[in-house]
């Protein structure tokens, strides 16, 4: 396959970047999108150029590192697919493909296609966890959980923190991500002790990071590789209202 790539190149966080055009001739349709970029980088290294920086880790669709805006869409045109699981066979021979980093004030570009997702980490640090004493595991089924709740919690827990929701939202809102992280714990008994405190702290941190506000247009839901639903955002609102009106700081 032949490809024309237009890739965002930016030396560092302060530099002004621009789209640079590259030609590739020998791409196998069986390659993943990241492997195609590997081929490009090999070529650039041989030619003495700076290879394109892009995030990746597991390459099996579970870590959320591969974050590229491809052809105007987060993770490319396939639904429920991360970039590492996107294959060149779904592109046309001779196609021109634009590759940009996530664009959000809260997720600033560090270099080329790599953004700093520290904002997500700080939101999790604010309360996206349960505090438990470790020790021997308790008996199975000691905590009865309705199957529907377990399913909803597991669906929310599928979020890999990739940031595609922020990237595709016209307001760069992180509400889908935060709602998934709140929901996975709010639905389970283990999440109850810190439920209200968590909702207040995580939303506060989200606001501090400079994400936008949801306007209910569903771009996040459509682009999320893990099919996180906007019903979670409604749950996030309910959790936040509940916490606001019932939680008392000691």
């Amino acid at each position: 396959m032949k490809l024309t790539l237009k890739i965002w190149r930016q030396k560092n966080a302060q530099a002004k970047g621009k789209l640079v055009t590259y030609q590739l001739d020998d791409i196998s349709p069986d390659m993943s999108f990241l492997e195609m970029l590997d081929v490009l980088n090999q070529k650039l290294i041989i030619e003495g150029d700076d290879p394109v920086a892009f995030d990746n880790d597991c390459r099996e669709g579970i870590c959320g590192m591969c974050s590229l805006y491809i052809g105007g869409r987060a993770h490319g045109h396939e639904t429920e697919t991360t970039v590492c699981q996107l294959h060149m066979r779904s592109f046309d021979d001779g196609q021109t493909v634009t590759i940009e980093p996530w664009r959000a004030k809260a997720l600033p570009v560090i270099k080329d296609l790599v953004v700093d997702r520290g904002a997500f980490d700080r939101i999790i640090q604010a309360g996206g966890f349960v505090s438990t004493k470790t020790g021997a595991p308790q008996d199975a089924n000691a905590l009865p959980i309705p199957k529907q709740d377990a399913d909803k919690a597991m669906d929310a827990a599928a979020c890999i923190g990739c940031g595609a929701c922020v990237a595709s939202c016209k307001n760069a809102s992180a509400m889908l991500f935060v709602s998934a992280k709140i929901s996975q714990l709010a639905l389970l008994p283990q999440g109850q002790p810190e439920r209200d405190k968590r909702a207040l702290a995580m939303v506060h941190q989200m606001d501090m990071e400079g994400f936008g506000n949801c306007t209910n247009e569903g771009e996040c839901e459509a682009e999320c590789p893990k099919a996180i639903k906007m019903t979670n955002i409604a749950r996030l609102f309910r959790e936040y209202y509940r916490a606001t009106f019932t939680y008392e700081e000691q």
Partner: protein
Amino acid sequence: MLWLWNFLRSSIGKKLLMALTGLFFCSFLLVHLGGNMLMFVSADAFNAYTSIMSGAQVNKVLEVLMVVLFLIHIYTSATLTIENRAARPVKYAMDVSAGKRTFMSSNMFITGSIILIFVVFHLWGFKYGEWSNDPAAMSDPNNLTMFGLVAKSFSNVFYALGYTVAVIVLGFHLNHAFQSAFQTLGLNHNKYTPLIQKLGTLYSIVIALGFALGPVYFYFSQLNAGA
């Protein structure tokens, strides 16, 4: 009460303010539309209704409340819109929508601004326009009743057309607003959300067509009368 202030300044608190004030105006529009329908009953019925509405003391209180709610809706939307624009300082070179984003849903602030201009114009033209339903004034042949003022205003093609366009814009605004308000209230469930969405679309069509009926009717009836 710091907690309440913090809540109202949070992203979700601001969204709630938008939703609650918005839903208030949704119910107000229904009442307003009901009143308008009296135009098609008779001139007297409509005049009697407008006299009561402009005369009753309780309505003065409601008017103040509405202005306050309207200002909250406008101020909050401006804040949210500024924050949302600031959240993406660098735009994409290429951006394709995959969700349910529409031109109208992405431009609520613009349709809202058009509605704001329209509302000012509307109040100035009718509520504070030159009319009197006072029996004493009736003997004056130049006096216009509310019905007369409405009929006269809409006999002008630009007036009638402007109103029709404005209420259609309002309809598009409401179509996205209605269902979004319920989402913001945290009411999203497979059981009833499809119903809310259908109701929202029906509601916005009824409002847009219902309010367009006045200008269209009066414009064409004076054309007939003239011919």
